[in-house]
C-alpha cells in the first residue's frame, strides 16, 4: 500500500496534474474576490473566512475525477482489484494521495491568501487548523464520489453533483470556525465538529468507495 501511495505521488509530480492545478485555482479564485467585491477592507475581512473555505473546497473538487479515472482507463484498476491489496486499502491510499497533493498545499497557501483578504490576525491559526482538519474529509468524500462515477464517460458533472451536498457540512462548520475567531467568539466547537466529520468520513468512506468500485468493475 505504501508502494501505491508512492506511485501516486510520483505520478502527480511528473504529470503535474494534482499539485499545480488545485493550488493555482485557489490562488486565482481568492485574488479575484477583491476585484469582484470591491477593495473595502471591512467587507473583505468579514467575508474572508467563507471565501477562503469555499475556494479550498472548489479547488479540491477540481481534481477529484482524476482519482480513479486514469487507473480505470489504462486497466490498472482491474489489475489492482485482482491483487493482494484490498480495495478498501486502495481507496484509503487514493484519498491520502489526493489530500497530500491537493489538501496539504491548500492548507499551506491559505494564510498567505488570508493576508490578501485582510483576514483579522487572531483568525490565522484557526484558519490553518480548520483547513488541516477539514480537507481530509473533502478528499475522503471526493474519493467515494469518484469511485461511484468511475467508468462513466465525462462523469465529472455527475461527480460534482453527488459530492457537493456532502461537502456542505464541512464547509459550514469550517467557515464558521474561522469567522467566529475573527469576531472573538469561541471557535473551538465548530472546529471539533469539523474534526468529527473528518474522523467519520475517514473511518467509513473507504469501505463505501471499495463497494462502489466492486460494482463498477463488474
Amino acid at each position: 500500500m505504501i508502494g501505491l501511495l508512492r506511485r501516486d505521488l510520483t505520478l502527480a509530480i511528473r504529470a503535474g496534474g494534482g499539485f499545480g492545478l488545485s493550488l493555482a485555482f485557489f490562488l486565482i479564485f481568492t485574488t479575484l474576490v477583491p476585484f469582484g467585491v470591491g477593495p473595502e477592507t471591512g467587507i473583505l475581512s468579514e467575508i474572508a473566512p467563507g471565501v477562503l473555505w469555499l475556494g479550498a473546497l472548489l479547488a479540491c473538487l477540481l481534481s477529484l475525477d482524476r482519482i480513479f479515472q486514469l487507473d480505470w482507463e489504462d486497466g490498472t484498476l482491474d489489475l489492482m482489484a485482482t491483487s493482494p491489496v484490498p480495495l478498501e486499502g486502495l481507496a484509503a491510499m487514493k484519498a491520502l494521495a489526493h489530500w497530500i497533493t491537493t489538501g496539504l498545499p491548500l492548507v499551506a497557501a491559505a494564510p498567505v491568501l488570508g493576508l490578501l483578504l485582510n483576514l483579522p490576525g487572531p483568525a490565522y491559526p484557526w484558519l490553518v487548523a480548520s483547513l488541516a482538519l477539514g480537507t481530509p474529509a473533502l478528499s475522503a468524500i471526493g474519493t467515494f464520489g469518484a469511485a461511484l462515477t468511475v467508468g462513466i464517460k465525462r462523469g465529472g458533472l455527475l461527480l460534482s453533483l453527488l459530492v457537493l451536498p456532502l461537502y456542505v457540512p464541512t464547509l459550514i462548520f469550517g467557515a464558521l470556525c474561522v469567522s467566529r475567531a475573527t469576531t472573538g467568539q469561541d471557535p473551538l466547537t465548530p472546529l471539533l465538529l469539523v474534526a468529527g466529520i473528518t474522523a467519520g468520513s475517514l473511518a467509513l468512506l473507504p469501505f463505501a468507495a471499495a463497494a462502489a468500485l466492486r460494482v463498477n468493475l463488474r
Partner: protein
Amino acid sequence: MNLRVTDLACARGPAQILAGVSFAVAPGQALILRGPNGAGKTTLLRTLAGLTPPLAGTIEAEPDAIAYAAHADGLKSALTVEENLAFWAAVFGTRDPAPAIEAFHLGPLLQRRAGEMSAGQKRRLSLARLLVTGRPVWCLDEPTVSLDTENVARFAAAVTAHLKGGGSAVIATHIDLGLPAAETLDITRFVSKRLRADDPFAEAMA
C-alpha cells in the same frame, strides 16, 4: 488441482453470456480458450479473476492463486519500465523483478518511460508483470496482441517455464503457442441459449 470450474454461468452487465462451463486445470497444464470474437472469452476470464461474480456454479482455486492479464496493459506512461515493475512487485509483496526483466528482454528498456514505448514493448512489460506476481494460475486475455514472432516465442518460453514450475494457465488466444501440455476448450458450446433467444438480431434473421 490448481483450478476447477463447475457448471459456471457468467454474465457481462445484465446479459448472461455463458452457461454450464466446466473444466479443470492441473498443475503444469495449460488450457487454451478458443471461440470467435464476442463469444465470451473475456467474460469467462474476468469471472475467473473474481472481477465479475458468477451467476451460478463454482470456481475452486487456492485463495490469491490467480494472476489476471487483461487486454489493457495497466501501465503508467509517466513511469519508467523499472518503476512500473517495481510498483507491481511492491503490490504483490516484494519479489525480485530480475527474472521478469530477463524473460521478456526488458534490460535495454529499463530507464525508458512506458509512454515512449511501442505497443509490443508495452505488451512485453505487461506480461513481465505476471512473473512478478508469483501466482500459480495465469488467466491471460489475448496475451500475444502486438507481439512480433520473436517475442511470441519468448512469451511461449515464459509460459512453458511457468508450467514446468508447477503453475498453470488459462489463455484466450487465436494463435498456436506450441505449449507442451495444452488442452483446447472451445467455448462456443457454452454460449448461453438464453442470450441467443433474446438476441433481437437472431429474431430478425429467423
